[in-house]
């Protein structure tokens, strides 16, 4: 996967920044390297929109299963990669990152691991588990529905349901209370008889509802 970067490095003449090779250095190391090559360059940091950690990929390989045949179609594999998070700092999933970001070396490495595991005959769940055991649960795009994480998944729903029940109870209480007597407040500057008020009331309600 580095060849496309080397190609690009060649056309971007005079730059060593992109040919980092093998996922070794961080972007800062690349910048220092470039600084050494071009004395005039005082650019200290190849800032992307986010700080990219090119060395974040870990090798995840498992021995192929006996008589291994891939259990996932390419489409299923892509779907699986949508559930695994690229670790370069882009916050994207592996599929999206590797098909979008030219400069990321982490998602192609993770993609290669996925392909290796698929070739080795592992199921989607087994591949997910292998990634989690190496990177931890942060490698998943959404937390698993178990343990403490259940709190993440169910609190919003529970909160809304409880809120809905509270409002319903409230409304019921209000409705059961007798409506306040329809008398004009002593200090109110309403100069109208009760009959006029009622007619106005009807007119206003009618106006609102056609």
């Amino acid at each position: 996967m580095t060849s496309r970067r080397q190609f690009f490095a060649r056309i971007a003449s005079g730059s060593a920044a992109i040919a980092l090779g093998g996922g070794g250095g961080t972007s800062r190391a690349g910048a220092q390297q470039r600084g050494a090559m071009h004395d005039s360059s005082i650019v200290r940091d190849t800032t992307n929109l986010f700080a990219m950690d090119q060395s974040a990929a870990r090798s995840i390989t498992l021995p192929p299963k006996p008589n291994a045949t891939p259990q996932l179609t390419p489409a299923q594999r892509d779907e699986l990669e949508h559930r695994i998070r690229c670790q370069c700092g882009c916050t994207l999933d592996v599929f999206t990152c590797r098909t979008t970001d030219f400069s990321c070396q982490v998602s192609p490495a993770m993609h290669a691991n996925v392909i290796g595991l698929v070739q080795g005959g592992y199921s989607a769940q087994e591949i997910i588990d292998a990634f989690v055991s190496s990177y931890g649960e942060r490698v998943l795009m959404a937390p698993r529905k178990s343990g403490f994480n259940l709190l993440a998944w169910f609190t919003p729903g529970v909160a809304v349901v409880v809120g809905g029940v509270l409002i319903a109870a409230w409304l019921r209480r209000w409705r059961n209370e007798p409506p306040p007597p329809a008398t004009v407040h002593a200090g109110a500057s309403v100069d109208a008889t009760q009959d006029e008020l009622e007619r106005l009331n009807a007119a206003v309600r009618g106006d609102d509802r056609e």
Partner: protein
Amino acid sequence: MYGTIAIATSRSRNRELIPWASGTISAILLFFIATTCIKANPFVRLDFMPVDGRGMNPQLQNPGMAFHPPNLYLGYVATAIPFAFAIAALFSRRLDAEWLGVVRRWTLLSWFFLTIGIILGMWWAYVELGWGGYWAWDPVENSSFLPWLTNTAFLHSIMIQEKRGMLRKWNVVLVVVSFLLAIFGTFITRSGVIESVHSFAQSPVGPWFATFFFLATGVTIYLVSTRLHDLEAKVELESMVSREAAFLYNNLVLVGIAFAVLWGTVFPILSEWATGNKITVGPPFFNTVNVPLGLLLLALTGIGPLIAWRRASVSNLKRQFASPALFGIVVAVALFALGMRASYSLVAYALCGFVTGTIVQEFYKGVRARQTIHEESLIPAFMHLVERNRRRYGGYIVHVGIVMLFAAFAGMAFRTENDVTLKAGETFDTRDPYGHQWRFVSQGVSTSNRPDRDVIAVGLEAFRDGKRLGIITSEKRQYLDSQHNTLFEPITEVGIRSTAKLDTYVVLAGVRGNDIAELRVTFNPLVMWVWTGGFVMMIGGLIVMWPQAERRPVQAGYAATIKASQAPAEIPVGV
């Protein structure tokens, strides 16, 4: 600036509130000025002499970026004014119609700019970043969405306070929460406590904002808790089936979504703190949690305007709901017949149909009434209808925009992605979500060197059902400075062919060897309706906000009369 305008424009009307409000605004200003002077001085000098400026990150060189940050900023900052008036009301224990007027106007302004800012941010992410969508539930996106949600909730619930004098406590809380969420958003962007693609804006002001946030929260909690009694509702609800009840549920859902988004955004911190377990809460989480809530909200958007204030009768309900509900069902059946099977999307489109039916019915009735009473023809009747009741009909126009957004979001459920590798002349065949047969023919890799950048480009000649549509080009660009050193990382220039039905979105991921292009070809249905919907919301917002200077005294009198008639018991009339 806002502070000065707000105080200048409302000084005469709110004599008792102004000292407190201007004090609060001053305190907020003091904080921000102190931050820029002491902690993050923007004019600090570099410790070396650069040969040449670096210029702007090319991903930010996009017209959307000229407008997205200022609009969001205006939206954020505008939350400070209602907050100041809320604090003033709490201090002075005065919360009346004048207060409502000021706070509503400024909240509307905040809402308006946040809407524009968010939509432009979505557009920028879509055309510039190349990952193929417009919303990724990034923490910083979320933190712009949160005050928008609470502002929206407030703009609805305030109508209850205006018409019925209820929900005072709740409204004050919403105003305050909007401001606190804006500060919280700034804190997230600036502190980098949560991993985000916006963390380029990190600076050491995190602790300052955290302190300010907790201080402001503390003061507000104290004030609200000690003044609860002064804010007691003066009237009570009369029926479970009334527009007030619909608004209450609307508020519940909006605040529920805000809570779900906030919860998902901070949960990684919570999890790490509680269990030591680092986790990611990404788009799958937010989509799962928010889609049902969003659909509920959409349903309420249709239901609310159909239910009468105070108490709705059964015959009234039947008459109001018949045509919109029928229209929604027709839409769902038609889509099912056309082969749509995704249940969430079917529900979403049925509700879109229902809400559209509601809005059309409201406009139809209004126009018919005007035609009968004033003997106007169709177009003038329509114009006068909107002009005479801007808030109501402007609001409906905003709802039209919302329907378009929901329709577009539901369409994204059908997006398809293809990971393709093509040499010059090779073809790639696929089907789009509507079932059309597409063929893409690679025109090969070309390179070019511009003064400021090196470019690799790939053109795909696109055919749909055998008909040639043109060439879609995607580029990779490496920007260079005047010394021909690389600047920033290489970036993608996405090739997009946009129609009302479908966006064809081509991303050049990279080139292998000399001539093998690695591409992603994505079909994104209905994306154009996101931008259209955003534009319609903006128009609706403008209609609502447009000053009605001459008619205002008349309206004020009218509003007071409604209160006098509907709630004669307690409301102090004509305050």
